[in-house]
């Protein structure tokens, strides 16, 4: 579901959640589970981590619901929580990787290849996924969030600005810098 859709239903559910009605949590999860999972997965590229992040996002949404601004859309609010938690998880994983062992790129690639629908295209998908994952991982945290919301969620620049709490100008320059950086990374990888 696109975050600009279903505002009234979301608002109603958020209002119920804010008043302590836990029954509103399950329908809210039904509406946003898949979308938030894809945001977290695009950011982290690891299904288990993405699932944990979305779970944490809904727990936070329940805990923070009383602080939710009733006039705001719930979709972008939930997306922002998910992006921030994905960034936290990414930092934690990176710290752990620096402490114990380097990230296993092969594992990421294998995991992504498992997501592909057609087995005969797995090798192709694995290579493309691996290169893209490497280029995405090389981006600064916020730039990566902009790329994920634009190219994995199809959000407009305005929607990205609302979701991440950035100005429109910052979103534009972040997207520009991110794409250029990805190009450099991909071309450097080929050389």
């Amino acid at each position, binding site marked *: 579901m696109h975050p600009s859709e279903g505002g009234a239903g979301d608002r109603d559910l958020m209002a119920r959640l804010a008043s302590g009605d836990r029954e509103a949590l399950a329908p809210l*999860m039904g509406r946003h589970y898949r979308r938030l999972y894809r945001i977290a997965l695009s950011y982290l590229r690891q299904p288990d981590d993405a699932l944990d992040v979305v779970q944490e996002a809904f727990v936070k949404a329940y805990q923070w619901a009383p602080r939710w601004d009733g006039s705001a859309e719930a979709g972008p609010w939930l997306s922002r929580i998910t992006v921030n938690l994905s960034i936290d998880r990414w930092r934690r994983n990176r710290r752990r990787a620096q402490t114990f062992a380097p990230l296993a790129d092969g594992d990421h690639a294998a995991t992504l290849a498992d997501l592909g629908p057609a087995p005969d295209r797995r090798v192709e998908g694995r290579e493309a996924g691996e290169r893209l994952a490497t280029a995405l991982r090389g981006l600064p945290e916020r730039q990566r969030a902009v790329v994920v919301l634009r190219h994995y969620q199809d959000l407009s620049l305005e929607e990205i600005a609302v979701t991440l709490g950035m100005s429109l100008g910052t979103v534009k320059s972040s997207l520009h810098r991110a794409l250029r950086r990805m190009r450099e990374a991909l071309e450097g990888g080929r050389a």
Partner: protein
Amino acid sequence: MILGHLRRRRLVSLLAAGVLEGREREETLAHIAECARCREEHEALRAIVAGMEQDPVRGADPPVPLAFFVARVEREVEQALVPRGRPRWWLLAVPAAAAIVAVAVLVPAIVARLRPAPRAAQAEIPPAEASPLLTEDALARIERNLAREHAARYLNEAGEVLVAVAATGVDCNRADERLDVGSAPERSRELLERRALVVRGGGEAVASARGVLDDVELALREVADLPSCVRRGDVERLRREVEERQLLMRIRLMTRELEG
């Protein structure tokens, strides 16, 4: 000149990202038609964008069905609501009920010993009526509530075990497609040992939960027979069974009913 060049590069990136509109879009398209370097830049960035549009991650479904995910989150919310270091309410309920029963039994006995010898008429009064603290009805109510609370706790824990197994995504052997279900089989066996106490001890108080308890028992028996490292297919079969029987939802509803 430099500023104009930087602006052009930014517009080329935004054109490749598909976010440029109106006059800016027309002008940038006209520019790249004439500028070979900008055209090459645009094509390279478009290829990256196209790669992301074909990335399987875009259409990936969560590895855990919604019903199990909802159960996982609700369990987390439940735990988040219990302040650390403070006992759960039912941990207080059992000693409190025991204290009430003890007072009800001991106080009349002590009072009777301290009193002077009763007259014949007073001695004929039944003990329950003589106790001002607790009637037989009140005792029966306490027993009934305790049995229902015990059953609710049992169902809650059983639900946690089923979610832990069905929602696991942890590989214990990637090559062999096996998943780690941790201590779930052991916890299932412990729960099955407690089941008789819940059902027989609960009697009529938990009669309405009998159907759910029976289905939970079947599911727990399957989990109890599992090793800690399970074939993915076995986990998926169990997940399907739990879903078909709507077991998690029924556990949730029955737990609430039992807790009143």
